[in-house]
């Protein structure tokens, strides 16, 4: 019984790590740009395909795939932001539609090139730590590690650097920040590309343990959206806490009850929370 509980708890941490990686990219973009990136799932898919190409097709080491996934999605993010998103910066709803359009384009481009079939990526760090009957795979630990590092780097960039201070200033009052001579379009491009890059890393981490196919992204978007809203929309720390809470409750309760029912229950709980705290659990005050 205790083993099952511990095992479920660690699985929950692993799910939370994956969810945090999905959300981080989303939340930094929303915070600064007011754009809800509907193509988040497709950037995950892109990261997963880059991993498939580099590690399965070209046989490169997994860590190289991790770096490539980040770099390529960042580049796609820069191009997309510069060419299409920035001209529409003042129209909030349009950013949403535009990224939704991008999600369809990305899905179809990958389908045209690689076909609809599922693709294979092998697990890089095989093996488990065994403590009695308890098994923890190295890859789960690696996933948790990558999530912690990514979160730490994001946190440092946004809260401990001059660039981060400028970004946060823009978040609070864009017009005033521009008046002070800060180039906000450059900050937009950086933030969007960085968000896409984190999402690319997430795709790379997911590729060996989940299914890689052109439509894989959609299933990750809802959970990410949920954590972001519960966490307080543009609150990085809140999103992390919400991700942990949602993943742990889904996995822990799912270990004892019917998973579909648990999911419905968690959704209802979230609706109730949002009814009483519409800005999320950790909304920033004074905005």
């Amino acid at each position: 019984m205790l083993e099952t509980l511990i095992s479920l708890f660690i699985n929950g941490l692993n799910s939370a790590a994956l969810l945090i990686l999905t959300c981080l990219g989303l939340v930094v973009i929303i915070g600064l740009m007011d754009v809800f990136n509907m193509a988040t799932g497709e950037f995950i898919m892109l990261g997963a395909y880059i991993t498939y190409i580099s590690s399965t097709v070209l046989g490169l080491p997994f860590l190289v795939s991790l770096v490539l996934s980040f770099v390529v999605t960042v580049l796609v993010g820069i191009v997309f932001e510069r060419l299409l998103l920035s001209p529409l910066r003042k129209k909030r709803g349009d950013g949403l539609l535009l990224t939704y359009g991008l999600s369809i384009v990305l899905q179809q481009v990958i389908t045209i090139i690689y076909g609809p079939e599922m693709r294979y990526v092998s697990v890089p760090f095989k093996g488990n730590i065994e403590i009695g009957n308890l098994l923890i795979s190295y890859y789960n630990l690696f996933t948790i590690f990558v999530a912690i590092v990514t979160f730490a780097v994001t946190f440092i960039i946004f809260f401990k650097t001059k660039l981060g201070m400028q970004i946060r200033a823009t978040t609070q009052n864009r017009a005033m920040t521009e008046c002070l001579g800060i180039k906000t379009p450059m900050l937009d491009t950086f933030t969007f590309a960085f968000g896409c890059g984190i999402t690319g890393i997430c795709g790379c981490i997911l590729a060996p343990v989940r299914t890689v196919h052109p439509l894989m992204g959609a299933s990750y978007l809802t959970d990410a959206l949920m954590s972001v809203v519960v966490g307080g929309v543009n609150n990085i720390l809140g999103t992390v806490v919400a991700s942990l809470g949602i993943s742990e409750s889904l996995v822990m309760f799912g270990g004892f009850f019917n998973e579909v029912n648990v999911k419905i229950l968690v959704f209802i709980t979230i609706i109730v929370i949002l009814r009483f705290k519409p800005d999320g659990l950790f909304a920033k005050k004074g905005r």
Partner: protein
Amino acid sequence: MRKRLLSLLLSASMAVMMLAGCGAGKTATDSGSAATEGSIEEAVASVAAETPTGDPVKIGLLFSSTGSTSISEGVMLAATTLAIDEINAAGGVAGHPIEYIHEDIQSDSAVSAEKAKKLILEDECQILFGAMSSQYRQAVLPVVEEYDAFLFYSTIYEGQEQSPNIVYSASIPNQIVPVVGSYMVEDMKRSKVFVIGTDYVYAHLLNEAFITYLEENGVEIVGEEYTAFGQTDFSSLMTKIKASGADCILSQVIGDSVVAMHKEYSNQGFKSSEVPIVSSALGSNFIAAMGAENAAGNYYFCGVNTLKDEVIEEFTDKIYAKYGDMYAPDSSTYGYYVAVYLWAGAMEKAYAADDLSLDGLREQFFNASYGDVIMDPETNHAYAYAKIQYVEEDGSLTTVKQSESAEKPDPFAY
């Protein structure tokens, strides 16, 4: 404003997720008017060898190009059009070239019904192929019955249905369960089985049939669980199975969840020598996607239209020759290829008898036969076979048991 927009978005996507539990998992993909492919020209062009002279005979194809089940349906569409092209190249159906119109049903039952209606009423197709999943077929059923059309349905399904307008040419539980169940009990000697599946009608009813059979044969069912469409996190389920002490997992999990499930199974240290998975979705495409190391030692069962391996091989070679490694065809995909031939043969007889009335067609369709597929006019289903295959270390499949002879269909056996 932003928050209201986000809340709206959240509620919308949560509603979709919840609905996914009872319907097809719908993705953000949406396809527009591009659904109808202009392949008619191609089809007609390929006829050049022996140009058919009669009026074209139109058929409608209902397969998803978008959405969650499009992954499995692409290859079925390819198999169907391959057969059509071959028949056209050989002179058509009694001299009539086949014209096909493909509609993207978007992995959605409501769209399936809508597109079926469109094909019948606007495009004047009396014959439809596809609607490969039970939920799509059940949505199309009232449409074909109302407008006197026919659906050729060739996916293994749960039975419990018999429409005078649907030609069911694939296997059903009474043709599968005894073969697979007896192998699990007698050869694998399993005594504690955990039953899992994707949460929809096919998995529930097929599992029910299996549970009845296994319990009658002294097997204890230690758990039964269903997961949402498109679920990719199987950690809780695997922990649950481990805690149940099961010595075998019987899986009706379908779609892209299959790969995630097998990967989690390996991740949690399950060994196929101790707790093998007996799965209805472990065909070559899934094995390729999850890698041999995650599939080896487990079992794949399927209903098939023929037990002749060389026939299946010839078919898969043709798909590879036409599409490269775009698709991974197997014996279940063969069902769609052979369904077209089954229909074409029956249609030729209908032309020969000069009776294209509804009853005339019905008479031909439900008495049709092609290769090893023989329709049973009493049940509108086909005599079919089942086999259970073992996944070898290299990911190849070895048949370990199969039906001794074609089993008479009985859709209401369980």
